[in-house]
């Protein structure tokens, strides 16, 4: 079949709105960007692309820069399951001059970098809650370098004079992790891009600064040769990468170019179909599909997209967002079916259903219940108004809702505004560019200043299966540091305690019971309003020359760019 055999060459072109949140793996979190990071920064473990995925248990970490999966039977995992000894794959090089091996010390540096107080990892709690001494290291770091304008020298000075007790290099090829307690999902954590190695050159740059972005190094098949935030990026082949040292990537294309422009799905689709672009960037444009597709993959780990998150720290309206009855009122007011219709009309390529729990279906701890039921998920304005009256807002309330200015987000915001108007809440809508939205939310200073009262982000799990740590922990564990994913500064000590119990469970079954408890508590607190849960089961549109494009759930079903090729005959 023409194009069935891999073909080397060509420049893969992506087009669409939006931007990477960050380039630096120490802080990059947006799944869209995960497609790009996968090309130039490798971790100890990663995920293989799986064609025709039918069971999320197939999405399991495989060795990438690690030589093998640590287990009790290869002296890689202690009997207590608290000590991991990881041996590095030999022969992997940085594209430095001259090329240099990736070492265990580079990983130690990478882990230290993600703790930086200037632009740290949004998922830092995955690491500080598992690795011995890492929480203390992060606290010491924040205390030693408390200002957001810290220089690279200050950051490097701290990193090079302080160690994370539970991570050390035994030699150049061997890395040891000591955990606080067994973590059934630790390899998933090590597969996150935060857990990338960092060459010594990175000591010269503030994380994700313009200087960093100009000087990224690669240990993957491509390297970043041009980056204009929110505008464009380009990756060319990394001349020192070798297929023999990379079991995961084939790197068929010669280069990858991303052009970032405001464009609706229709425009993006037209570019792809006309051959002016190969893949969509950020815009969920699908290949034609049946109206109600049945796909066994529909039961794969569902994402929450969107959900409504409240800013508990906002002073607006007399601290209205801190009032449970106000939040509950909003929960009752939302017409979820109207929002489902918006996404349906968008032809976003997903199966959508109204969400009623923090944990969406398909994930450990999920149970089907609804604390705020409304007829047909259409909202219950009367109940909402009653609650607002009880909360002391019988004269109404003005709130600020921020939203992204792409895809369905503006329309979702307008739909919510209409819902809330019915119950006496006036919304001021603030539109933010795709590139600015998440950084804005991740800064608690914006929350405390009341620059927003609620918003509608989306959350896709960082991994599947036993992923309570990837859903509930970042969303609801107390975390008011910059880079947080608990955007609204929600904090409940009981929830924090339940999360810790779930995390210290030694079996997934035991953990699921606790995760469900967390779900129930945050829903009782109305910390969020789950709106829609979805499984992105329908492939994004590709140009006629793209072959072997496999969607990866761990990057929100965007494609694995490292293994597709371009058919020169198409």
């Amino acid at each position, binding site marked *: 079949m023409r194009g069935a055999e891999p073909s080397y060459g060509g420049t893969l072109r992506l087009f669409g709105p939006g931007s990477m949140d960050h380039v630096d793996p120490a802080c990059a979190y947006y799944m869209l960007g995960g497609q790009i990071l996968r090309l130039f920064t490798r971790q100890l473990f990663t995920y293989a692309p799986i064609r025709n995925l039918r069971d999320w248990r197939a999405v399991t970490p495989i060795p990438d820069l690690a030589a093998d999966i640590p287990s009790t039977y290869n*002296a890689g995992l202690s*009997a207590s399951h*608290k000590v991991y*000894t990881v041996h590095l794959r030999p022969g992997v090089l940085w594209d430095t001059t001259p090329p240099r091996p990736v070492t265990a010390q580079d990983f130690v540096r990478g882990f230290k970098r993600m703790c930086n107080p200037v632009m740290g990892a949004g998922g830092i709690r995955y690491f500080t809650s598992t690795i011995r001494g890492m929480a203390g290291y992060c606290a010491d770091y924040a205390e030693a370098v408390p200002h957001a304008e810290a220089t690279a020298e200050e950051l490097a000075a701290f990193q090079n004079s302080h160690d994370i007790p539970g991570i050390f290099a*035994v*030699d150049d090829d061997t890395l040891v992790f000591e955990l606080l307690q067994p973590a059934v999902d630790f390899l998933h954590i090590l597969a996150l891009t935060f857990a990338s190695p960092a060459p010594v050159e990175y000591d010269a740059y503030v994380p994700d600064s313009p200087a960093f972005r100009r000087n990224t190094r690669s240990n993957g098949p491509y390297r970043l040769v041009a980056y204009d935030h929110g505008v464009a990026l380009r990756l060319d082949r990394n001349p020192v990468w070798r297929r023999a040292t990379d079991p995961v990537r084939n790197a068929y294309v010669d280069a990858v170019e991303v052009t970032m422009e405001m464009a609706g799905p229709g425009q993006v689709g037209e570019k792809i179909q006309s051959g002016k672009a190969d893949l969509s960037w950020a815009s969920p444009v699908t290949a034609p599909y049946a109206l109600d597709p049945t796909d066994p993959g529909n039961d794969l780990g569902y994402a929450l997209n969107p959900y409504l998150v409240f800013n508990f720290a906002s002073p607006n309206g007399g601290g209205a967002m801190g009032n449970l009855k106000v939040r509950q009122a909003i929960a009752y007011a939302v017409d979820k079916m109207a929002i489902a219709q918006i996404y349906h009309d968008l032809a976003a390529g997903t199966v959508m259903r109204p969400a009623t729990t923090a944990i969406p279906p398909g994930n450990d701890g999920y149970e089907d219940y609804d604390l705020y039921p409304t007829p047909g998920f259409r909202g219950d304005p009367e109940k909402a108004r009653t609650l607002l009256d009880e909360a002391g807002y019988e004269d109404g309330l003005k709130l600020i809702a921020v939203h992204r200015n792409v895809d369905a987000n503006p329309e979702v915001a307008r739909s919510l505004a209409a819902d809330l108007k019915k119950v006496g809440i006036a919304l001021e809508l603030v539109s933010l560019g795709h590139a600015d939205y998440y950084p804005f939310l991740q800064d608690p200073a914006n929350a405390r200043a009341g620059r927003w009262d609620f918003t509608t982000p989306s959350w896709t799990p960082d991994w599947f299966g036993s992923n309570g740590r990837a859903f509930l922990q970042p969303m609801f564990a107390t975390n008011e540091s910059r880079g947080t994913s608990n955007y609204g500064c929600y904090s409940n000590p009981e929830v924090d305690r339940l999360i810790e119990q779930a995390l210290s469970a030694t079996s997934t079954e035991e953990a699921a019971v606790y995760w469900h408890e967390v779900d129930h508590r945050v829903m009782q607190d109305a910390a969020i309003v789950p709106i829609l849960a979805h499984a992105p089961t329908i492939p994004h549109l590709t140009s006629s020359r793209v072959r072997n494009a496999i969607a990866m759930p761990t990057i929100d079903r965007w494609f694995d760019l490292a293994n597709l090729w371009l058919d020169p005959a198409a």
Partner: protein
Amino acid sequence: MLPTASPRVVPAPYQSPPGNLTESYRSDLHDASWEEIRKLFALPEDAIHLNSGTVGAMPHEVLDIYEQVTREWTGSLRNIYPPSLYPEYRADIARDFGVDQDELAICHNATEGNSRIIAGLDLRKGDEALTTTHECFSVLSNLNLLHNRCGLSVKTITLPSGYDVRTEEIIDLFERAITPRTKVMLFAAVTLFTGTRMPVRELCDLAQRHGLITVVDGALLPGMLHADLRALGIDFLAGSGSKFQCGPLGTGLLYARNKVLPEYNPLPLPEFWPVISTWYPLLGHMPNRTVTNVESCNMGDYLQSAGSASIARAAALAKACEIWNAIGRDRIERRILELGDYARERVAERFGPGALYSPSTDARLRSPLVAFKPFRAAEDAWNGKKISALVDRLENEYRIWTRWIEFDVPDSPHLHYAARLCTHLFNTREEIDQAVDAMARLADQIS
């Protein structure tokens, strides 16, 4: 089933293979020097074997019997099932350990023994098993299996390590860990990591005060210690036939207390399911367990009837035991422990007493296993690559066989790695000197 058309052939009754030790030979062994005894063993001349904790070395006679019996049975067409119960072998070996034939089965190794014991205990959701982090994986994995399968709660304590550990510390640690839900205590007779000879009788006393079942991983016990299992008061024990007992690989012992002698263990016999048993009734139940010193059933037979079996391996194990008896089990124990003490002293001299993970000052806890950290830098104690390199080079460059181990140490966040050497009756002080000197040289180089 014999074909009816053929003349009926009556199989010859099974007899012990020829070559049982003669009285004079037994006497010779009893008085033989250790140098002469060493010649009994199939050991290469140019190698030093200090790893009997993993696998021993068979005497030539044991190997000969194994081969001979294998040949006798190959193609013999005799009925394999009666001799597969090993009645005489079990009776002989049981006597060596102070118990009766109805309480002993010859299994394939200590792992199988431990697995079948744990699987056969009547443990339910809500019950708690108390054990240590220094147990063999065969104990820990099977307990975790029961945890996952039926909700057993598993509580682990980490044994103290170091040259100055006291018996009382260990007993106190267990006692503080017992709760109202504890049903069974599981511990090794001699721990495989630090070589701590556990205070078995005292721990059984503790268990009996609390009405607990005792399961002992005695993998290292047979051939090392002259132990009377009944007097120790144990309920269950699994032992290896191929480590210190120097029988063939594929042999082990499974002891299940099958009668009540209150002077040793007054508790009722625990409910026990003989996992893997073709004798287990096809309908109905096993007889109730006895409450007296007279067995109500032959539990050993139930456990031994696990299908057809190699007669040769049991014959060889029995031969190894016979040789041990001829030399004298007490004598062997004294010899092994004396060599172990010598090794410990040499290690302490060369590397410092602080290098020892094995107990030293409390003689009750000493065994022929000596575990120690050979490197000077403290952080090298959690460097698995260095210890692995040392053991490999010791083998390749010096032809000295030891092993490295990894284990938890109380109050340390690290997984510790140590070198371990085991002294046995065929070792000499000169061999120990050579090994310790070689390890010191290698440690200096690798550091």
